[in-house]
């Protein structure tokens, strides 16, 4: 289960680096051929994009988040990672919003299919939070199973992951409830914890892989002291105590399976706009559609895959009709899938507690509140029938 994410045996961090060390880390990755991606401020939000160096990071910024609310504000320090997660997730790199799958060309009464080779990368992800690392592990289970997705497999296996333990959870965060954070791991190459003490600005470094070890050894670094460890642990402990939301996940699969006709679905359907925002910002939502196109000659065809959402009417099209015609049916599908049937399908919850669906819902629907409402007034028993 996902609950193992975010826990890690405590041991002394391998090293401490300063700001110069962090820049050297990014330079080393660039020299090794990685495209370095990380958080940066754009359009009033902290998004993920290519970064050239430490100067591109959101120094001194933090985010205030609540249901349907996201604001950047200044911190009173120069922290580089003093915020939670923004509208982007790493999903956009591993499972791109649009992917060309193949091209086909008519020739002499038949046609030939030419597969699109995986493109992009290798990528280094800087600033992966515990919830986000857990989300990547969840998408691994979707895309690296019996039929591995070529693009995902290629990008994932080559990705260098630098986690940064969360110091500043947002008002919509509940990773502690989902067991995914705030401590990131396992599954990173390197994991940093940002320490700001007086004039000191440093990062403890945990190593999670051989290539992480190799990279660290090439950087200017100091051995971590017990004092450093204590400082890093304090950061994580403070974060764990600062969750803006919580969700009671006890028996949640049975709770939702047993309440498919709960009146709360009608209630939430009155508020939900079926806008798909929650599915697009969700770091684990994996649904896609395909589009088959031709050029004007009709002789050249392409197949594109793009993100799709269970909140659209077309999603459930079947023989000219639609299975889920109501917002009630679609919201129930999304939430029941995310929190319940995902467990049957992939042996993990589909929710990592990142809070994006709450923040970016234009009408402020709160998944933790919806679960609580059903739990308080459920029809069947707590472990009701399915």
């Amino acid at each position, binding site marked *: 289960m996902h609950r193992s994410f975010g826990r890690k045996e405590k041991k002394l961090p391998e090293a401490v680096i300063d700001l110069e060390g962090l820049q050297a880390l990014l330079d080393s990755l660039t020299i090794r051929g990685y495209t370095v991606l990380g958080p940066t401020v754009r359009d009033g939000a902290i998004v993920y994009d290519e970064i050239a160096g430490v100067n591109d990071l959101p120094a001194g910024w933090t985010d205030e988040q609540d249901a349907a609310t996201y604001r950047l504000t200044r911190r009173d320090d120069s922290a580089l990672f003093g915020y939670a997660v923004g509208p982007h997730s790493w999903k956009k790199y591993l499972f791109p919003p649009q992917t060309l799958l193949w091209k086909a060309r008519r020739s002499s009464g*038949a046609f030939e299919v030419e597969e699109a080779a995986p493109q992009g990368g290798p990528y280094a992800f800087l600033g992966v939070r515990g919830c986000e690392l857990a989300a990547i592990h969840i998408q691994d289970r979707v895309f690296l199973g019996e*039929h591995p997705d070529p693009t995902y497999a290629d990008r994932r296996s080559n990705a260098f992951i630098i986690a940064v333990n969360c110091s500043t959870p947002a008002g919509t965060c509940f990773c502690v409830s989902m067991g995914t954070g705030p401590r990131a791991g396992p599954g990173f190459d390197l994991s940093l914890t940002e320490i700001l003490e007086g004039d000191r600005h440093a990062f403890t470094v945990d190593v999670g892989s051989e290539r992480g070890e190799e990279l660290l050894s090439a950087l200017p670094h100091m051995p971590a002291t017990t004092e450093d460890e204590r400082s890093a642990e304090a950061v994580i402990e403070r974060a764990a105590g600062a969750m803006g939301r919580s969700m009671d996940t006890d028996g949640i699969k049975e709770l939702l399976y047993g309440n498919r006709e709960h009146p709360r679905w009608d209630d939430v359907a009155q508020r939900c706009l079926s806008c798909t925002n929650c599915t697009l910002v969700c770091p684990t939502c994996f649904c896609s559609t*395909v589009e088959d196109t031709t050029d004007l000659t009709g002789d050249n*065809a392409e197949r594109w895959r793009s993100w799709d959402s269970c909140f659209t009417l077309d999603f459930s099209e079947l023989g000219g009709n639609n299975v889920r015609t*109501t917002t009630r*049916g679609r919201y129930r*599908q999304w939430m029941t899938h995310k929190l319940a049937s995902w467990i049957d399908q992939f042996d993990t919850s589909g929710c990592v507690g990142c809070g994006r669906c709450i923040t970016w819902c234009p009408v402020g629907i709160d998944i933790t509140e919806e679960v609580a409402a059903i739990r308080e007034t459920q029809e069947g028993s707590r472990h009701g029938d399915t």
Partner: protein
Amino acid sequence: MVGPADMSGPMTPRIFRVASKRRETADTVTLAFDPLEGPQIELRPGQFDMLYAFGIGEVPISMSGMSEGSVLHTVRAVGAVTRAIYDAGEGDVFGMRGPYGNGWGLEDHPGADVLIVAGGIGLAPLRPAIEHVLAHRELHGKLSVLIGARSPELLIFQDDIARWQARLDAQVRVTIDVAPSEWRGAVGLVTELIPRVSFDPGRTVALVCGPEIMMRAVATDLMDLGVASDQIRISMERNMKCAIGHCGHCQFGPEFVCKDGPIFPYERVESLMRVREV
């Protein structure tokens, strides 16, 4: 030459040519497909392929039989892709990938009576199961085939049905919802045929395919007669974009119809069948 299938990702089709075409009804045809190169796709009864019409799109279609080494697919024109397939002629090419899905699993029930209930084009995925039982008659108990259609001209596989009805070792019944005056057979819902054939409910496996409401009605009647819900198998249908469990479209509760199905023991989906919009 190395075909795309040898190196390809799971969404890449191989090319198949239409070897022959048979009209079933005003909007339904059966096409026989052969690969341009490489091996034929080997499907078990109940499995399906993804059929791609050049530049138009892709649809999941059950295998409706094998004929002289060709894979048969029976397609009703309801959308742009199925219309293109319906309009195809001999020699036309399509993309195809498969096989997908789990199949009817008749082999799990040696010696059992086999009760097959089909509604409309739901007969298509059941046809290879019927042919399999008829070809291996000694491996199975009594064979009953109950077929419902809205009207006589919507009955597919009429030659096959006549051939099956001529067999002395099978009970084959057909009913029509709305019958013209010249119709001499049964009129009514397919469930009304159930009491008219003989099978032992305690040792029967039932294979059912048709509209969901029909499958639910059939399953309910069969359970009332004493057929265990895990001995009733239904073939589910949902929107599908990938057939490999990636696209999410075919979810039916916790099930991915494409890889966990399309055939499900009724016991496993019974509670879902009672809920709208799952």
